[in-house]
């Protein structure tokens, strides 16, 4: 349990450091996680926004495209998707809604959705969002993802409306974005880590690094009794005993704490 408290402290510290712009610290870095540079307190750039600016209408600005990829790549090569579990403010938000989502699991309809055979294919949606909405539509049409991004709505739109009453009016994308934001809220309250599982494009960038990352979670499968306590507790819904460097694993370590035979551990190469 102490381990999960350490993770909570890490998430809170990273949330604080992501918002040092409130004290005037604005840097030229990109976050290695999902957070909006339109947040009045943001200290760095959203990696997806940098990619969008880099590919806008087919004008490939390679510096702006590769920079966020290298930042995410460096972090990903070291820790895989641990960023999602230990650093991302949206991960922290979903951690707080996770207990409600977990309680809702007892309702058969939610359980059925979670166990439906289509569910595992839905996880590929985030790659479609990354390639389709962040890259292809930006190349061919113009900004699309940032116009409807629910995280931008949560961390940019709402704080700006509160801090600057009467200074802004909704743009043409406001209402579609509001609908998507409401769906986002419903999603994270009904499916644990629903955003990370299915839609997060930054998670899609980090996921492949789980296959080669320096840090990973290892299961001593030969001694495993397949009690599935670990799989039941996993917020990402992974079949833990059969996972080997699963791209969905966010290295939160809940399975490590749960295994009665202590067969699951963090490993370094």
């Amino acid at each position, binding site marked *: 349990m102490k381990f999960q408290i350490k993770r909570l402290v890490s998430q809170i510290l990273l949330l604080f450091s992501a918002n040092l712009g409130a004290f005037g610290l604005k840097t030229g*870095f990109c976050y290695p996680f999902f957070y909006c540079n339109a947040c009045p307190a943001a200290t760095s750039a959203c990696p997806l926004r940098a990619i969008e600016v880099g590919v806008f209408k087919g004008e490939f600005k390679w510096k*702006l495209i590769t920079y966020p990829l*290298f930042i995410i790549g460096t972090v990903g*090569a070291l820790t895989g998707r641990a960023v999602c579990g230990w650093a991302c403010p949206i991960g922290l938000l979903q951690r707080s809604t996770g207990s409600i989502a977990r309680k809702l699991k007892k309702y058969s309809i939610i359980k059925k959705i979670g166990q439906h055979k289509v569910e595992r294919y839905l996880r590929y949606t985030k790659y479609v969002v990354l390639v389709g909405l962040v890259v292809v539509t930006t190349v061919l049409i113009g900004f699309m993802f940032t116009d409807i991004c629910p995280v931008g709505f949560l961390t940019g739109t709402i704080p700006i*409306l509160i801090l600057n009453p009467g200074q802004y009016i909704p*743009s043409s994308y406001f209402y579609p974005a509001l609908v998507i934001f409401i769906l986002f809220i419903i999603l994270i309250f009904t499916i644990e880590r629903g955003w990370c599982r299915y839609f997060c494009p930054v998670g899609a960038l980090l996921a492949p690094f789980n296959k080669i*990352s320096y840090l990973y979670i290892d299961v001593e499968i030969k001694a495993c009794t397949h009690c599935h306590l670990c799989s039941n507790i996993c917020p990402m819904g992974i079949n833990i005993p059969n996972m080997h460097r699963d791209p969905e694993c966010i290295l939160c370590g809940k399975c490590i704490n749960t295994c009665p035979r202590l067969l699951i551990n963090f490993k370094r190469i």
Partner: protein
Amino acid sequence: MKKILAVQITVLVLISGSLGGMFAFTDVYDEVHSRIVSVICLSCIKLDPIISLEFTFETANDKDHPNFVIENLTNTGPLFLAYRTDVCAYCDDMEPLLMEIFNVTFEKEDIFYKTVNLNGSDVTFVHINTDYAKGELFESQDTYDIDGDNAVPMFTTITLGYNRGIIEEYYNTVYGILDPHYNDEQRVELLTNIILDSIELYNENSPGYKPD
């Protein structure tokens, strides 16, 4: 294990080395800072600033008006400054309207000025792409950015006004597509009205203008 370790080290060295190289040999850090972090992204916030048609005397950063503005007000007439960045969907929407109003053609990268005759008076149109502008032209954005968000497109009309016994520089700044409910015709009309107001004010006040 040895194979994956080799792959891991190779990937890490390549990626982190490239990142280090970018920091050392390119201006990407400054570019991200100035183009993304320091600029409010109207697309990300899904909001448009409410425009004000009022003119004001106080500059946004309390600095003096740039020399090129004072020189133009002294010798020619009001100015219309159009600020944009390279990557700006709203700027792309608004620029054809500016071309129509001022009867000029330009590319988005262009930094230039042209004095045009509107309603019998000279107005200087200045196109400023802040990704390339330097010196006074670049710094002037902060001077006239009333909202203080560095939002683009930003349109500043500068003329002369009567302020407690003194004729001073008097300006108006509007942003974005002006109002999301407007069509292009209404946007042209609104900008034209601001420019016509500035011409009227200039003609009233220019005889008494004595810049410091």
